């Protein structure tokens, strides 16, 4: 318990809240790469998932490709990108590019799989009824399928975001910043307080993100479908798996 008190003292020390190695800067680094990676992954995965889920075509291919992607650990992606990106861009190749590529590839599968599954789980009778009412395909997608599938789609983004925040810690291995810096530096310098402070910061960040998305997901259930609340905040969406390498 001595070490815990020392860690809390480290966290409370004003010196650790300023400068380029301060907690606010590390938080911004960690958060920004995570947000950018999830947004880019969403820009890639959402259109594909909406198309395969709506048309029912290419679902198997998309989901299998996503599952193969999941077998490749982020740590492996990170280090495999490194030698190539260093040659392409000496200024960003060491830290930003490998972290960004690995995090984006990590975020694509859960968003793609959940978007596709969410749309396919929408009751076919409802879709037929919407078509019968004269809705165009675009209207069926926008007014029926997406609202009904929204909690599952957001569930995919939630899985992606939490996994990315957890895994972005590894960016510190290739000299990126973020909270992982404290962990890697703590190990290197035999500084247990720094190490444990990093652990608490990144775990707290991941858990708060998880809880935030869980609340958002509950709020997004279409009002017509809302029943009594059920399930724990850690109940996960369909077809979820841990980041291989997070």
């Amino acid at each position, binding site marked *: 318990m001595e070490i815990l008190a020392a860690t809390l003292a480290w966290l409370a020390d004003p010196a650790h809240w300023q400068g380029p190695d301060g907690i606010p800067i590390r938080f911004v680094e960690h958060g920004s790469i995570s947000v950018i990676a999830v947004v880019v992954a969403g820009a890639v995965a959402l259109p594909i998932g909406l198309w395969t889920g709506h048309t029912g075509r290419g679902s198997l291919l998309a989901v299998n490709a996503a599952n193969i992607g999941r077998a490749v650990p982020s740590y492996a992606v990170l280090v495999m990108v490194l*030698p190539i990106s260093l040659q392409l861009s000496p200024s960003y190749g060491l830290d930003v590019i490998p972290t960004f590529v690995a995090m984006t590839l990590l975020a694509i599968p859960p968003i793609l799989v959940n978007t596709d599954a969410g749309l396919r789980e929408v009751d076919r009778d409802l879709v037929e009824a919407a078509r019968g009412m004269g809705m165009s395909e675009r209207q069926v997608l926008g007014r029926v399928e997406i609202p009904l599938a929204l909690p599952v789609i957001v569930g995919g983004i939630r899985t992606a975001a939490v996994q990315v925040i957890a895994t972005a810690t590894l960016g510190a291995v290739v000299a990126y910043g973020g909270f992982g810096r404290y962990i890697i530096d703590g190990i290197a310098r035999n500084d247990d307080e720094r190490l444990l402070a990093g652990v608490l910061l990144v775990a707290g960040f*991941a858990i708060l993100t998880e809880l935030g998305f869980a609340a958002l997901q509950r709020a997004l259930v279409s009002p017509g479908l809302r029943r009594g609340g059920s399930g724990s905040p850690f109940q996960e969406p369909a077809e979820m798996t841990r980041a*291989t390498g997070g």
Partner: protein
Amino acid sequence: MTGRPLVDWGWVVGHLDDIALATLQHLGIAALAVGAGFAVSFGLALWSVRDRRVYGPITAISGILYTIPSLALFAVLVPFTGLSVVTVEIPLVAYTLLILVRNIVAGFDAVPADVLEAANGMGYTRGQRLLQVELPLAIPLIIAGLRLASVSTIGLVTVGSLIGDAFGGLGVLIKDGIAAFFPTKIYVGAALSVALAFGADIAFIRLQRALTPWARARISGR
């Protein structure tokens, strides 16, 4: 680094025994973690099936464990358990729990009620029914859980190398490759880790086919 090939095959050929040793260690660490995780999860799942009230808390706690970054969880144990195999195994086992408990419970839940009733009617005891009726029918979902758990565990073993060289498997090759700016080691370590993950996945698919011969008639996409 320009001008040097990304993979120096001469090095690979000269270090085949080191590579084989790292691969075996990698596999051993992952197998121990999945084995131990399965034993713990099976116990927790059976408890959940018998008493539904414990299922929520069990998945909530394993869900919190699951959210903690692997590097953080490895690192947090070092001051307590030192650089031992235990430090590597505890997080790996912890991460398998959520996937395995959920899949095992789902597997038992998927057994149709009339099958259970038929078994009761035939005079099976509770233990016999569990082993001879419920377990075989739950195998597809249990193995689906084992596939996910083994693929993710094999990937995570590489991260363990950041804590220390002793128990990092192929991750040690990767780490040395980064430290020495020698891409060959990075690619060999990463590629073999991915290959092990695929190999484990395929092995479990084969195992499932062998254990559920009655399902062979209806082959569907995975």
